[in-house]
């Protein structure tokens, strides 16, 4: 039995998910070992968070506004017609805060930061820059992967909060401002107070926890996958685009799979036998 577990453990560590877990464990272990130069490492972290988070704000706001507007229009116009008008708040919470916010932000970060990170590290590998760090006694995991991991996790959380706020509030104001131009929107009778009250009254502790856990976890998954594909590039420049491609696609797939896993415990609330 022990031999079987040993064999399974070794097989897992050699597999793709196993190598991702090992890379993540190695990067997160840096949290418990203080760097020689805290100031330098902090500035690396700030720089990575800025690149991932602050520079992505316009894109996230733009997408969030469109998603928020579409969701609000659909919810406000369709739901009363099928007798589900009272569930408007719940729908907004489930659709935007639980699902669309973390998922769309993760997709944007995977496409933008994930691809950049993978290309950046892949090029460094091909140009022997990572070897150069190693011969200087600079641990590449500590110097490159740890700040990327932490920066992406922090940025993902911040951007998801921004996405949720923008899609809910921004979407509401877009719909209101369009009411004067598009006649159908004029029929939407919903004050801001009632709109927010319905949303906040539908929020639970689970929603709050998910709003924190999901983006942070997705950020970790995206950065680890992107870093892994970057640092496992060989010595050939032609491998860099392939690595970037795999990093983005795998980030999308893993994010969706983990989104499903996050949803499984919530199915209990629907009284579905599992």
């Amino acid at each position, binding site marked *: 039995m022990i031999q079987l577990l040993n064999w399974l453990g070794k097989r897992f560590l050699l597999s793709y998910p196993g190598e991702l877990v090992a890379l993540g464990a190695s990067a997160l272990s840096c949290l418990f070992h203080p760097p*020689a*130069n805290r100031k*330098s490492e902090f500035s690396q972290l700030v720089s990575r968070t800025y690149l991932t988070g602050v520079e992505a704000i316009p894109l996230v706001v733009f997408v969030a506004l469109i998603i928020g507007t579409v969701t609000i229009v659909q919810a406000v116009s369709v739901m009363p017609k099928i007798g589900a008008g009272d569930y408007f708040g719940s729908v907004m919470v489930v659709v935007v805060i639980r699902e669309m916010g973390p998922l769309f932000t993760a997709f944007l970060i995977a496409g933008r930061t994930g691809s950049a990170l993978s290309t*950046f590290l892949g*090029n*460094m590998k091909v*140009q*022997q*820059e990572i*070897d*150069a*760090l*190693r*011969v*200087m*006694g*600079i*641990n590449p995991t500590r*110097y490159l992967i740890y700040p990327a991991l932490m920066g992406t996790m922090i940025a993902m959380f911040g951007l998801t909060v921004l996405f949720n706020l923008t899609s809910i509030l921004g979407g509401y104001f877009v719909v209101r401002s369009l009411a004067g131009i598009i006649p159908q929107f004029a029929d939407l009778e919903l004050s801001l107070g009632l709109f927010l009250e319905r949303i906040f009254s539908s929020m639970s502790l689970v929603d709050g926890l998910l709003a924190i856990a999901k983006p942070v976890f997705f950020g970790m998954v995206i950065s680890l996958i992107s870093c892994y594909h970057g640092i496992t590039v060989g010595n050939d420049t032609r491998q860099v685009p392939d690595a970037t491609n795999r990093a983005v696609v795998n980030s999308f797939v893993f994010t969706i799979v983990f989104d499903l896993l996050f949803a499984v415990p919530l199915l209990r609330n629907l009284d579905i036998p599992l």
Partner: protein
Amino acid sequence: MNIVLSANNLCYSIGSHKVLDRVNFYLPAGESLFVCGSSGQGKSTLLRLLAGLEKPDMGVVRIFDQDIQEIAPKRFDQLKTKLGFVFQNSALISHKTVWENVALPLIYHNLESADQIKETVDNTLEMLLIKQYQNLYPSSLSLGIQKRAAIARAIVTRPQLIMMDEPTIGLDRISRGVLLALISNIIHVNHVAMIIVTHDLFAARELKSKIGVLKDGELLEPMEFEQLHDSQDTFVAQLFNELQLH
């Protein structure tokens, strides 16, 4: 005799191809050794093994009397502050300026205060005659300046041992001459031990270094340029022919 670098029975294979076969040598403090050989003889591989970038199939590498395979990774990282390495392609960090590249090991290891780092880096850049390029990124530099920047980065921590991979390759005559003068200065003034892998036998003669030839994976006994030139070994003669020294 203070030995800073030694290799004992070093073997390395890629698949079934034996790249290095029982390589033995030692390098005393303050001395230099050139490792020459035709393309594909494993010169760069030898250097990567010595720096701990690859693991040998067999054999021991000792740096400052420490077996680099037995030493703890953190201790080895600290040891590397006494070791400089210059890659064939310079391998400067592309998103950092020349100044930032040179300052990197000092900053990461927190070896000096910020003021001292500035002074040390400025002095090193001046010594290598590249102070005017300090704010430029590697992609905008010529090959010769990139090599000098890489050497600056390798010597900024005042190492006792430097490894160089083809430092003169691709350089024009003037840049090569400047670079060799700077390397000579580092060896003879700073008393740094240096192992240089190169095709450039002339460079070894100019720096008055011993030369070890890699032949079929084995490192022949290091000797002076003149001794090597007079060698009866057909492989060595062929190497000289290749280099058009005759």
